[in-house]
């Protein structure tokens, strides 16, 4: 076990026009409580702005939250922008099972639906980044 230089850094983003941010803000807080460094873009972020923020903030993982159903075009543009950077793109929200194959093909590495346990999301990020968070908060 190596000592990580820093905990995982995560960008949580609300790309596109959907303004339902309760879930995104819940995940931001859960990951912060899990000891990660989390940056939140706010609403109405363009896919290009998400890519730019991910690179400037030097994050390991980009978590996109889309609840309107328009996740395919948005994810495609973010994945294209981040290709080759080694950053993982994951998606949360209302995502039909049938879209999963197409999302995987464009580079989305994981999909977390409504009600996904916080430990599952945090565990996936730790595993993917090979980084453990320092003493996560009690709950």
């Amino acid at each position, binding site marked *: 076990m190596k000592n990580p230089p820093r905990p995982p850094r995560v960008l949580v983003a*609300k790309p*596109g*026009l*959907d*303004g*339902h*941010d*309760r879930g995104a*803000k*819940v995940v*931001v*807080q*859960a990951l912060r409580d899990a000891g990660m460094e989390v940056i*939140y873009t*706010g*609403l*109405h972020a*363009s896919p290009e702005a998400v890519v730019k923020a991910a690179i400037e903030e030097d994050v390991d993982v980009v978590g996109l939250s889309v609840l*309107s*159903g*328009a996740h*395919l*075009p*948005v994810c495609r543009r973010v994945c294209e922008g981040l290709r080759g950077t080694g950053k993982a793109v994951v998606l949360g929200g*209302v995502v*039909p*099972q049938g879209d999963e194959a197409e999302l995987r093909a464009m580079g989305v590495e994981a999909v977390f*639906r*409504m*009600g996904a*346990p*916080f430990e599952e999301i945090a565990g996936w990020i730790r595993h993917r980044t090979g980084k453990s968070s320092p003493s996560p908060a009690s*709950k």
Partner: protein
Amino acid sequence: MDPSQDRKVVAESGFEIKPVYTAADAAGLDPGRPGEFPFTRGIHPQMYRKQPWTMRQYAGFGTPAQTNERFRSLIAHGQNALNVAFDLPTQLGLDSDDPRAEGEVGRVGMAVDTLDDMERAFEGIPLGKVSTALTINAPALVMLAMHVAAAEKQGVPASEVRGTLQNDILKEFIGRGAWIYPAGPSVRLVADSIEFCAKSAPKYNAVSVCGYHLRESGATPAEEMALAFEIARAYLDAAIARGVAVDDVAGKITFNLNVFGNLWEQVAKFRAGRKRWASIVRDEYRAKDPKSAQLRMLAGGGGGGLTIEEPENNIVRGAYYALAAALGGAQTMALCCYDEAYSIPTEKASLLSLRTMQILAEEVGLCDTADPLGGSYFVEALTAEMEKKIVAAEKEVRALGGMVKAIEEGTIQRKLARQAYESEKRLRAGETPKVGVNRHAVAGAPAPKVETHAYDSASADRKIGDLRDLRARRSSAEVRASLDAVRRAAGGTANLVPPILEAVKARATVGEICGTLKDVFGEFQEPRF
């Protein structure tokens, strides 16, 4: 749990529920008569016995022609009012051919670019008779103008149009997020619409203040009501500052309230809310007309209570939500649909919600007598507790410097987001029971198969084609002149509805009008989270 041990029951709003209530708990709590100040028991003397609640399912998708078909189907099934859903580009003031609209045109509601669309959506629907609610906020004035212009074309003058604008922009900054302009100019737009309706469209409700979305964002039932009142005060103050009398504006403001959670707590919330609002309007704003002090409300939405797991259970939840709204004295219901956790409703889901309300109103006796719970020791005691909690939550917002300041600084958004997180943790820990999720859930059950509304991208392409045709057909000089007039009015203090009405008649688009206002007002800057 050990059945011999009593358990502590605490309502979400933060007061304890006793195992039994007696006359002593309701002593001195006579709620008076329905139809009389302070309207705890309802705003009409006979309530549903005289007229059941209005039924208006939220509907709209794809093109205006597709939406028109759904409207007609709902009306054919006995619905007596409409509630229009707009797609996200329309809600954010973008045209269907804007690059930012990609994938969103007609997806969660009807796509509207110009007056032609509004005329098409209401074809064959008499706008002087069928009351129509427009679920639109930042571009509310544009949709109001299109509604009035479409009615005019049907021969219905503005004075006869029956409608309700959602037009509650302050809640968009807290939940739902369909904002464009900064808070200050946004409130000015609301004041313009109130003034216009007060003077020219007396049958139009200018605002429907949405406790609903505050609750979805993390507010307790008491906070939902209190924050809605603080928002309503901001609109009242802005309209009164324009020189409109309180008795001309208070009646233009209605409320849209949530129903998920403990049934009794919701009923108490509605009853206490009516009492509190009556006192605010009469005693603080000095309204003289008793009607000004009546809290009129739409209820029946409870998205936060619905589950993606075992979605048919949501049909049952919806029926109990309708019961809560009816026992609480709602004027209008738009009942949530069982597939709401997946997408906008299918026609089947929407009609099932309509049938749920009809069964409640016509088969099981909900309309027989006004406020059937009036005088219940429990309900009256709970109503009194709830009123105290509402007043306390109003004070908390005041302590933050008022609603507009709290929104600009993000204090209210952070508070509710923290509460939403805590409530998600309680749900995941099984402390908040959810049948089929953390109670009686079947391990390893396959993902439910639900028939959902399918997005039709071909209709989006048709919509964009229609818009391009229209741009080629209209007089660009007339459009330019009308937009200049909008720009001048926005820069000054004149009411913006009349110039926007001229612009929509010249076939200026939603994107052009909202873009013009954005040039003048700028954009809201979201506080950091």
